[in-house]
């Protein structure tokens, strides 16, 4: 189902032009977390282009993208799929009450060696 407003918003947040994609699939081929995603980087590109964004907003993939920039680096057309995934993730967590990681979840995840970097990064990715 096409949702034009949502599509425009995702394109604006990400600054990505999905129409540059030539559908070679290299982004998903190089994604180190492909196995943990139900929608893969190339599907984010094609589904955003079609305005079919609601399924992506419910996708587990939003939380398993590692932001490693492998898809950004290796795309021969500079489409930058990770920026689309980030934009959809933001469209979700910017909604009231939609934070994926809550401060009260943290104590159970701590161990004595866990670097602060992991916690601040996870909050940046999962919470607004």
């Amino acid at each position, binding site marked *: 189902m096409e949702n034009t407003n949502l599509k425009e918003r995702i394109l*604006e*947040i*990400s*600054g990505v032009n999905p129409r540059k994609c030539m559908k070679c699939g290299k982004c998903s081929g190089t994604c*180190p*977390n492909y196995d*943990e995603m139900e929608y893969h980087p190339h599907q984010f590109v094609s589904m955003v282009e079609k305005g079919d964004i609601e399924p992506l907003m419910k996708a587990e993939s939003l*939380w*398993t993208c*590692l*932001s*490693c*920039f*492998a898809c*950004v*680096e290796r795309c021969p057309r500079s489409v930058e799929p*990770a*920026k689309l995934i*980030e*934009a959809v993730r*933001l469209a979700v967590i910017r909604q009231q009450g939609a934070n994926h*990681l809550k401060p009260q979840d943290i104590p159970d*995840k701590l*161990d004595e*060696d*866990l*670097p*602060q*970097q*992991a*916690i*601040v*990064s*996870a909050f*940046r*990715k*999962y919470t607004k």
Partner: protein
Amino acid sequence: MVYSYYPGCTLKTKAKDLDRYARASAAALGIELQELPDWQCCGGVYPMAKDEIATKLSSVRALLSAKEQGNDLVTMCSACHNVLKQVNHDMATDENIVTKVANYMKLDEPYRGETKVIHFLELLRDGVGFDELKKHVVKPLKGVKIAPYYGCLLLRPGKVMAFDDPENPAIMENFIKALGAEPVVYAMRNECCGGYATLEKKAIAEKKATAVMDNAAANGAQMMITACPLCLYNLTKNAQGGVPVKYFTEVLAEALGVKEEA
């Protein structure tokens, strides 16, 4: 040589070794690292959204502070380096972000990415020079096979980071050679360790970090080195394999003979 220095939050807490061995090594090489006054946490990951300003401000404040001091800005942690360098690139190229930041921070003169952000490894390569570094080595790490782990953040996106060839880097290998050790070249050196996903789903980080360590071990690594506290965590706590992992600054301080006093 005087540089402004941005240590980052983790170097004050869980990654003190990365910081103190760097400071001792810098002193031994005649480099003065002046810690920025009042720096704030960079946030750990680069905020990619074009419409976000607030999440970029802590980086801008650090960049601006270095500009005011007239120094290049040295980073130590891969994540801080990635965030500061990418935000600096935005400030040099995205007029919309420049204007919004200038309005928000009430700057008389907009900040346009004038500060040069350099990772300490780049400083060793380009400022000191690996040949010169070699002359300062008093305890060469002879015969030690060290696998450099680049991870993601030092290298990508290559066009912005401009750290080294993002798919076939050599800087850490040359650093290891300068210390008298033997670099281990392996395919997974620039693949992800699992990063912050250790908090979302530990199994992801276990799988990713183990794949990296297995590959390093299969190529004969006796030790791995990194510049990233989260990579070090994932490789030591989430990987199966048992190859010791150290910060690059620790082996540097050891070779320069300043490890004990650090």
